[in-house]
Structures are given as C-alpha cells and as structure tokens.
C-alpha cells in the first residue's frame, strides 16, 4: 500500500522543483518529470493490485493535518479510485513519453509543470473525500488544462482555451456555490459524512437545489449536449497529447466524482437527469459526427458520445428500480467502457499526432504506411466502435442486456447510437484505407501501439467480466482456434508458410471439433464449414499472388467464428461469434478493391447485428433451444442480422460490390459458406423463436416473399451485370433467396430443399467463384466483355464451369435440379402458389445469366490480348476437380445428401421428416410427383454417347477451322473484337424490364443516409463557435436543470 498523499505530495513537489530547476538547467527537468510520473503510476498500480488481490480490505482513508474526517480534509481511496488513478497516470505516462519522443512544446519546464498538475488534479478529483477539496482539485485541473490547451499556440487552441476558461469558470462557480450552500445546509463538507447524514434521514428543502448546482457544474465538465461545444473545440485545436490525457483520463475523474456525488446526495430524479442528458449526448454526438470532415473533431464527437454513454450507464446505476444483477452488469460495463475509451482514444489521438493535417482527406493512405500504424488504428477503431473481442463490445453487450430490464427504448437508444458510431467510424476507416499512395506519417508510434496493446491485453479480462455477468460460455475449442488463427499473423514474412499453417490449423480444427459433427443442424453446418473451408483454402494457394499478410489470419477467424457460431448454445454466444465473423469478413472485403462496398457492408452488418442484439436482449431466455413465443416483430428484429448476411431484398445493396470486389480468394468462402450462416440463423429463428402458429404463418409468409423476391430481383440484376464476379454475386444472393424461401415454408420438404440447396450451392458457387478467381488471376480482369473464347486456353476450367452452371441453372441430370424439384414440390404442397410462380420465373431468368457466364467468358472469339493466357494454377484446378465430382455424383445419387438431411430433420422435432419415398423405378417419390435421378443420368449419358458415336461414324468430313472462319457476309473480319458479342448482351431484354430493375433500394438507402447526414449537418450548427453562445447555453441549461429537476 502506498499512501495516496504521497502521490499528491510528490507530484506537487516535483512540479515546484521543475519550476526551479528549469531556471538553471532546463535539460534536467526531464529527470524529475518522468520519474515522478512513473512513481505516480507505480504507486497507484500497487494500490490497485492491493485492492484486487484483497490485501487491502477497505478503502484507504488519509487524514490531512491530523484532523478526523468530518472536520479535516481527507482523501478516500477505494478500488475505483485506485483504478482510475492508475488509468490517469498510465495515460499521462504514455502522453509524456510521446511528447518526449516528439519534442516538448516550449517552454518545456512550464509545460511539464502544467502536465503534472493536470494529472495530479485529475487524480485528486477522484481521490478526495471532501467537497471543498474537490473544488480545489477541479480548479487545479481546469487551470492546468487552460494552460496546456493554450500551449500549442495555434489560433484554434488559444480560442478553445479561452472558451474553456469561460465555461470552466461558470462550472466552477456552480460547484463552489453548491459546496458553500451544502456546508451551510449540512454543516459538513465530508462526502461520507454528508452521505451518511442524508441516508440517515437528513433532509432540507434546499438540498435538492444544492445537489443540482454541484451536478450541473460537473455536467458542464462532463461535456453533455448541448453545452459541449467548447470541448469539441479543444479536441480539435489542442495538442493531441493534451487531448489524450484530457479525454482519455481526466474527464473520467469528473465522471467518478459525479457518480459519487449523485449517490451521496441521493436525489430521486438524478437518474432521470443522467439518463436524459447521457442518452441525449450519446445519441446526438454520435449522430453529428456523420458528416464531420475534421479527423480530430470527429474523434472529439466520439469522446463526447462515449461520455454520454457513461453518464447514461451512471443513470442506470442510480436508478432505484434496477435489479442487483443488472447493477453488477452496468458496473462491469462502466469499468470496461472507461478502460476501453481511455486507451483507444489516447491511441487514436496520439496516432492523429503522427498524421500531417487534420482533414479526413489528409488521412488517405495512412493505413498502408506502416504495419504498426495499421495495427494500432484498426484495434483502436474496432474497440472504440464496440466490436468484438475488444472491451467496448463487451461493455455494450452488458449495458444492453442490463438496459433491456429497464426499458426497450433504452436498448433502442443505445443500439442506435452504437450504429451511428459504426457508420462514421467506418466511414473514417473507409476513407483512411482509400488511396494507392502511401501517406507520410510520423514514426512516433510506440505510445499508441502500447495503448492499443493494452486494449488487446484487456480482452481476456473483459471477456471474463462479461462472461461472469451474463453466464456466457463460448466453446473453448473455438476460442483456442481463434487465438491460434491470430498467431498466423506472426508468420507474415511468408505467405506460403501462412498458407500451410492455415491448412494445418483447419485440419486441427476439424480434429478438435470432431465430436460436434453429429447429425443435427449444428453438425450439418459444421461439416459444411470445415470441409468447405479446407477445400476453398486449398485454392488460395499464394503463389505469385499479392495477398495481404493479414489475409490468412482474417480468413481463419471467419472460418472458426462460423464454427463457433453453429456450435453456440446461447444467443449471446451466437451473437459474439456473429460479430467476430462480420468484422473479420469486413477486414477481408476491405483488402479488396471495394473499400466503399466494405463500408456499406460494415454499416448494414452492424445495423443487422444491433437489431439482432436488441431482439436477443428482449428474449425471455438466452438459450437457443429453449422454445419461446414472442411476436413476429421481435422475430423479425432477431432475424434482421441474418437477412443482412443473406442480402435479402431490400438489404442487398452491399452484396454486389462486396462480393465483386473482395479479394478473389475470399469470395468463394463468402458466397459458398458465409452467406449460409444467415441461413443457419434464420433456421434457428424459424425453429425456436416463432412458434406461435398464427404469428408463424404471417412471419413465414413474409420471409417467403422476401426470399422469392430476392431470388427474382437478384437474378434479374445478374442478367445485366457486366462483371464476372458481380454477376456471380447477384446469382449467389439469388440462390440464398431460394434457400430462405425453403426455410420459410417450414415444412419438412421445404427444409429438405433448403438444406440440400445449401450444400449444393456451396459446391457449384464455390466452384464458380474459385474458377472466377483463377480466371481473374490469369486474364487480369473480371470485366466480361474483355474475355471470350477462353475455352481454347482453359479447357478444364470451362468444363468445370459448364457443369457448375448446369447445376446452377438446375437442369437435370446434374445435382442442382434436386433442390429445385424439392422446392417446387414443397411450394405447391404448401399451397404458396403465387410464390411458386415467381420462383419458377426467377429460375427461368437464371438461364439467361447462366448462358452469359459461359458465353462471355469461354465462348465466342478469343480476344487478341488473351491469346497467351494459360490454364488456371494447379491448386485451383485441383479444387475445381474436387468440387466437380459431387455435382455429377449427387446428380445421379441425390440420396447421398437427402438421407443425412432426413436424419438431421429427424432431430428437429418441430418439423418431422419429409414425406419422400424411394423406389427403384420412380426414384424419389413425393406426394406430388416423382423424379428418377439415376435413370435420367444414365439415360442422358447413354443417349449422348450413342448419338456421338453414331455421329462420328456417319458424319461428313469434319474440319476444325480457325476461330475467325465464319460466314461474315463474305467479308474478312479484321479482329476478334469485331465478331465477339460480349457487351450489352441482354440490352433488348433490358428494354422490356427496365421498370423492374430501377435501383430503388439503393436510392432509398442512399436517400436515408443523405437525409440523416443533412439533419446532422443542420444540427451541428448549434455549435456556433462563439464564446458568448456557449456561455449562454451553459447558464441556460443549468437553469433548466435547476427548474425541471428541483423537485
């Protein structure tokens, strides 16, 4: 145990000493400055350790001057105070180190003094047990801050300092007034004493007013909306190091004292006040940041927002009606939020110090400048935006779960704010990752790196805290695998090694998860994931490809999080893995060409996920398999995240570019397996959530239409797509629409169709995307009109694609037909005939793009520039062959999949097994009809071979001619381009359906985004930047608080 007075005394002493030393030996100041901070940090850390390990049982009480507490001034350091002190000095140390590397602003000694005083004041605010002392420390902090802010000597900084001074004075006045009146009313200044008196029944008419005066003063310091304009100016104008200390740590001291004061003074309406101001600040600032073009001010908005969230959480804590378990959750959330925000924001501000210029535009290309920068930035942004596995995520999870007991609207508010945060942070991320050039950044990156490493280090702690509070268990094996996946990053010096390690890891994962491969829904999907990932990973053979070093780790994280997802037993666990999967896939997509697509994907994913989280928080039981029966709207909320992943209309707008422009090696996984996670989730929703019959029928019918309309519109859009991968993207989404339709039917046959199609879609679409990756790799473009005639150069790939396309089009005798047959039979049996009509039409339209894929890539004229193209690389070819076999085999023997599916459905008690019989002559027999796959295959193959032999024997002399030897009206064609029909292939059809393919969804979503952005832009005008206005706001709002909450 270290006496806290030592911290204060030594720091004060050092500050004086520095002042003296500076006059004689300016260079020696550092020898005092740094050891002081280190000592402060160590002392606080020792205390914190003492509290955590239990060696210090009760709060440390320090009497000053020997007088006992009610009379004398005292310090009261408990667990929270110690932790906050540690945090403050840690951040201060980081900042000081950063400054030291960069070079102190001049005059060095004075700045050091101010810096020490700021840290000291902040620590003192949290340590003190006395209201008057509190005021003293507030003043110390404020004055130090004014000086520090002004020290950077930029015009904005000076202006900000002045504003802060004016506002801070008002706030101090309020606090001082409050303290004076408090002493008059209670006759004491000691917090504990007053708290005890009030709890003991002391009451006074003016007490409420007094408390409000103090709290209003503190709220000003806590930067609540709308009296936080000055804070934003500071964030924008001041030296980033100062800002890091202020926003990262010092404000937290105010927060702590706010909580303490509120709980001691125990006014019943405090919690409402906090909720209103906290929630308002949170939502409004996250929202106002949307259009912000200044990076530092954007971070400032974020800080203000986070503080708002903290105040909101504080309000929850103060609420008298909150159950004890929820209170523990909120407490944990508050701790995590503070931790998260301090480190991520100091990391971000210190990073900002390394970037020249403040505009977002100046940040373009910084991500590619150095791996350290990339790591710190990504970690911090992910953490501050509340993405797993960082503490911010767990904090939000806990907070939402606690708030759900309180009010669904509060949940909505928190999630809306979180979504708004994701929107602008990922806009930031998107802008930052744009640009081909490397931006010039400073190399002063150690401090942010350390801060972000703290974040990473806090992950287990956060997980443990959240898991304890939520009784959350994640599959241990999967966690191990996820950890190992991240380690693959360390092999970043060689892609080949990474590839081999990844293959090994997937094999190890398969071994580890083998016991879970049972004949149930999870086992079914787990098998698909593991086998599929292994095969598709094989095709990513690095060779000469230019893969990012984080490609394989992210890939593996996606794979294993999917495994964890399907093995989840609680909705929490599912949500956690879902988020991990989403963000890992976001990183992967962002590695491709479509940065904007990645942003849209991130935003929509987050929207879906938060809707899902909202749904989960409102569910009565977190266990997936426990059957519940909430209304269809809740089910819809719950499945929104899944629908986003499946890109169901009208949530499909991300799909085209995200699929089309993600790295070619990742797209097969994205389409073949990852989109199926939405299927899995929807299956769970159908099975366990909507069980009320009347609501089920409407919910299912709605989703059935959603599925079939997805299939229809996406197919239609695929027809007119001129880019190979985007075409396949639309096709993929359309196929998933069929799967959703099958699930929505909720009959055994419908589910059989859906599950069959799930597997089969993996085979043919995985094959097509793998082939596309190979083609793009060889040809160098995915633009269809630039290809053509590649059958001569890539016969194997053509053959594979041909079979895949036949399966895709659902033409017998290959495997794709079974899905169609089952689906239509199920549809007609169920009586959804209008849907059946649309589904039929959609699958007819699929022929259009099927032909387009094959023609535009492989047939027609071989272009001049592609004459030397070679067959795809060997690993790709191997994967093509592997994926080819099931297409044919399943085409002849569909029971190879149908039987396992029947077994799986047998486990799903709500459904029963499909009414299918198998006979020798008729093949698969349903109640409606029959279909003999083996016969069709044998008949087709036999007849084809017979016809071929007959032809070869009887035909005329066949001469293989050159590619341009065509009847061209007697003319000699000049070049292959003249003859190739590749561009605008279905323009005539487009004229017929142009009213159907109007990009309504895109326009609507963009319109919503633009409108909200415009509103945010308007709202931001209340920050006039004028000191008078700010002061007026402060006074006005404080009076308002006094008036409204007086009683």
């Amino acid at each position, binding site marked *: 145990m270290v006496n806290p007075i030592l911290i204060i005394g030594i720091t004060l002493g050092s500050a004086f000493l520095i002042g003296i030393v500076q006059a004689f030996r300016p260079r020696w100041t550092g020898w005092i400055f740094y050891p002081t901070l280190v000592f402060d940090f160590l002392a606080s850390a020792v205390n914190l350790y003492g509290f955590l390990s239990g060696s210090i049982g009760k709060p440390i009480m320090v009497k000053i001057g020997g007088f006992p507490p009610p009379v004398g001034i005292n310090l009261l350091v408990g667990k929270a105070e110690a932790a906050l002190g540690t945090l403050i000095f840690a951040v201060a140390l980081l900042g000081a180190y950063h400054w030291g590397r960069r070079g102190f602003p001049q005059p060095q000694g004075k700045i050091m003094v101010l810096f020490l005083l700021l840290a000291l004041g902040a620590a003192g605010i949290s340590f003190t047990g006395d209201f008057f002392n509190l005021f003293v420390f507030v003043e110390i902090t404020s004055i130090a801050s004014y000086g520090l802010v002004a020290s950077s000597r930029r015009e904005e900084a000076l202006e900000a300092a002045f504003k802060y001074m004016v506002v801070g004075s008002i706030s101090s006045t309020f606090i001082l007034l409050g303290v004076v009146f408090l002493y008059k009313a209670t006759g004491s200044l000691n917090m504990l004493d007053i708290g005890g008196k009030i709890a003991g029944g002391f009451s006074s008419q003016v007490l409420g007013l007094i408390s409000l005066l103090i709290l209003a003063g503190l709220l000003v310091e806590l930067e609540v909306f709308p009296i936080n304009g000055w804070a934003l100016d500071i964030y924008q104008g001041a030296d980033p190091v100062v800002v890091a200390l202020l926003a990262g740590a010092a404000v937290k001291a105010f927060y702590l004292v706010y909580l303490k004061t509120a709980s001691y003074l125990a006014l019943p309406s405090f919690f409402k006040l906090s909720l209103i101001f906290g929630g308002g600040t949170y939502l409004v600032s996250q929202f106002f940041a949307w259009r912000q073009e200044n990076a530092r001010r954007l971070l400032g908005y974020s800080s203000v927002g986070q503080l708002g969230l903290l105040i909101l959480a504080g309000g929850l804590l103060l609420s008298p009606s909150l159950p004890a378990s929820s209170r523990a959750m909120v407490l944990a959330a508050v701790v995590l939020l503070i931790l998260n925000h301090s480190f991520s924001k100091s990391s971000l501000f210190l990073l900002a110090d390394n970037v020249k210029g403040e505009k977002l535009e100046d940040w373009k290309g910084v991500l590619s400048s150095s791996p350290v920068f990339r790591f710190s930035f990504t970690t911090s942004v992910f953490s501050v935006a509340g993405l797993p596995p960082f503490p911010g995520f767990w904090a939000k999870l806990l907070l939402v779960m606690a708030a759900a007991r309180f009010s669904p609207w509060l949940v909505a508010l928190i999630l809306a704010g979180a979504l708004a945060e994701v929107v602008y942070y990922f806009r930031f991320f998107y802008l930052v990752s744009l640009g081909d050039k490397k931006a010039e950044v400073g190399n002063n990156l150690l401090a942010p790196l350390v801060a972000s490493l703290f974040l990473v280090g806090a992950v287990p702690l956060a997980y443990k805290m959240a898991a304890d509070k939520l009784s959350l268990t994640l599959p241990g094996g999967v966690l191990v695998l996820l950890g190992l996946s991240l380690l693959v990053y360390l092999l970043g010096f060689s892609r080949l090694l990474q590839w081999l390690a990844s293959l090994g890891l997937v094999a190890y994962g398969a071994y580890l998860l083998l016991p879970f491969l049972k004949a149930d829904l999870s086992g079914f999907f787990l098998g698909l994931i593991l086998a599929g990932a292994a095969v598709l990973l094989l095709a990513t053979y690095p060779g000469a490809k230019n893969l990012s070093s984080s490609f394989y780790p992210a890939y593996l994280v996606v794979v294993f999080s999917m495994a964890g997802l399907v093995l989840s037993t609680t909705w929490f666990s599912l949500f956690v893995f879902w988020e991990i999967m989403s963000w890992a896939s976001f990183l992967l997509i962002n590695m491709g060409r479509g940065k904007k697509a990645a942003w849209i994907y991130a935003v929509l994913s987050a929207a879906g996920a938060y809707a899902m989280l909202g749904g989960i928080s409102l569910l009565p039981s977190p266990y997936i398999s426990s059957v519940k029966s909430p209304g269809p709207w809740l089910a819809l909320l719950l499945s929104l995240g899944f629908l986003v992943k499946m890109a169901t209309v009208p949530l499909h707008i991300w799909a085209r570019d995200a699929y089309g422009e993600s790295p070619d090696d990742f797209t097969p996984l994205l389409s073949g397996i990852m989109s199926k996670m939405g299927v899995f989730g929807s299956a769970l929703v159908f099975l366990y959530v909507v069980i009320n019959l009347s609501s089920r029928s409407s919910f299912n019918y709605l989703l059935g239409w959603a599925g079939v309309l997805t299939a229809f519109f996406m197919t239609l859009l695929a027809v007119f797509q001129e880019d190979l991968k985007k075409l396949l993207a639309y096709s993929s989404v359309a196929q998933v629409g069929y799967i959703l339709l099958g699930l929505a039917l909720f009959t055994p046959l419908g589910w059989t169709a859906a599950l069959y199609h799930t597997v089969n879609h993996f085979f043919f679409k995985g094959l097509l995307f793998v082939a596309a990756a190979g083609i793009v790799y060889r040809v160098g473009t995915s633009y269809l009109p630039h290809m053509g005639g590649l059958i001569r150069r890539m016969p194997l790939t053509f053959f594979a694609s041909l079979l895949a396309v036949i399966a895709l089009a659902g033409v017998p005798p290959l495997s794709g037909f079974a899905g169609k047959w089952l689906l239509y039979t199920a549809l007609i049996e169920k009586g959804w005939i209008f849907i059946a009509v649309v589904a039929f039409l959609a699958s007819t339209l699929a022929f259009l793009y099927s032909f387009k894929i094959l023609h535009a890539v492989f047939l027609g004229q071989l272009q001049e520039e592609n*004459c030397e193209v070679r067959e795809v690389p060997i690993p790709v070819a191997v994967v093509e062959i592997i994926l080819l076999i099931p297409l044919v085999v399943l085409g002849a023997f569909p029971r190879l999949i149908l039987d396992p599916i029947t077994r799986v459905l047998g486990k799903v008690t709500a459904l029963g097994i499909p009414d299918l019989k198998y006979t020798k002559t008729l093949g698969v027999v349903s109640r409606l009809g029959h279909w003999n796959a083996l016969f069709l295959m044998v008949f087709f193959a036999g007849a084809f071979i017979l016809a071929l032999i007959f032809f070869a024997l009887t035909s*005329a*002399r066949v*001469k*293989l*001619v*050159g*590619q*341009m*030897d065509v*009847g061209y*009206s*007697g*003319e*000699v064609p000049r070049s*292959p381009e003249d003859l190739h029909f590749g561009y605008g292939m279905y323009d005539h059809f487009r004229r017929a359906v142009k009213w159907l393919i109007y990009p309504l969804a895109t326009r609507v979503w963009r319109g919503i985004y633009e409108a909200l952005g415009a509103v945010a832009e308007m709202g931001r005008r209340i920050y006039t930047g004028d000191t008078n206005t700010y002061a007026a706001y402060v006074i006005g709002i404080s009076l308002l608080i006094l008036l409204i909450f007086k009683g």
Partner: protein
Amino acid sequence: MGKDKKYFLDEKPEKLTYGGVFRRINDWARARSLWVVAYGTGCGSIELRPTFTSRFDAERLGMRMVATPRQADVLIISGYLTVKTLKRVIRVYEQMQSPKYVVALGACPINGGMYYDSYNAINRLDLYLPVDVWITGCMPRPEAILAGFKRLQELIDSGRADGWKKYIDNLDRYRENQKKIIKNWKMPNYNW
C-alpha cells in the same frame, strides 16, 4: 497478314471422291433440296424474288433461300460481277460445304455482256469459279431461271454437276486467276 495466321485455317481443302454406297439416293436428294444462298451480286437478283415467291414458287422444286453460306448448296451469280464483289463471292463460295453448285445468270458472267468494256466488271466468270449452269438473257426471266434450275437438278441427279470437285482439284489454277485481278489479296489463302 502474319497476325491473322492464328485466326484462320491456312490449309488446303482435301480432294474428295464422288460416289459411295448411297450415291443414287444422295444425288436424288441433293437435286430435290437445293438451298440457295441469298446473296444478290448484281442486277439479276431482282429476278430471284419473283422466282422464289408465290408467282413462280421455286419452293415446289424443293428450293429455299438460306441466309448463311454454311447451309447453302447453290450460289447464284446474278448478273455482272465487279472486282470488289468477286472477292466476297469467292469467300462465300469457299465457305459453302460440298457438294455445292454455282449458277450464273445473264450475259455478264459469260462474257461481260454490256459491261464488256467496264474498268470494273469481270468478263468471264468461269476463270474464277466453276460454273455448273449458265442461264443467258439480260436478264433471264423467272421462267428461264426455273428452267436453268431444272437443268441443274438433272445434272445433279445424273452426277454430272461436279464443279465443286473441279474447283478443289484445280484450286491452284483458279487461285492464280483470281489473284491476277485481285491485286491486293487481303483474304486468308483458303477460306473455310
């Protein structure tokens, strides 16, 4: 032209034998199923329209217009042939599949007709293509054309319409003649 090598088959057609087990029936069928490539080379093609439509109804003889040389049996040179057209005609003729026949309408293909002194119209078609049937007149009426086709059918039926064979057999000589008037031979050497 070096670049075009990879786009065109530069190989001489093989010589074909005429006969076989089904020779009789083949000739009979060929005679009764004459598909004419719809390529009007000169003024005479105006006479082909009445020939093939309701008034004279060549379809009753089993004849049809087809739009692509690949499927055609008969190439009609309808009247004068300019150098520019000749290039295209040669290509069309060589793109037809054997057995194939050439019918020349009017006086111009025989000896230049009224264009005997034109700087641009060839004088004798049979120097460049093997003609199976000549139909004289300027222009021959549809009746005459039908009579000519009747003659062609007889020739085919009796196995005497073997211009396509002669062309392959004497390809080098034909080519020499063709190249004499087509100075700048921008075609592949063998059109398929």
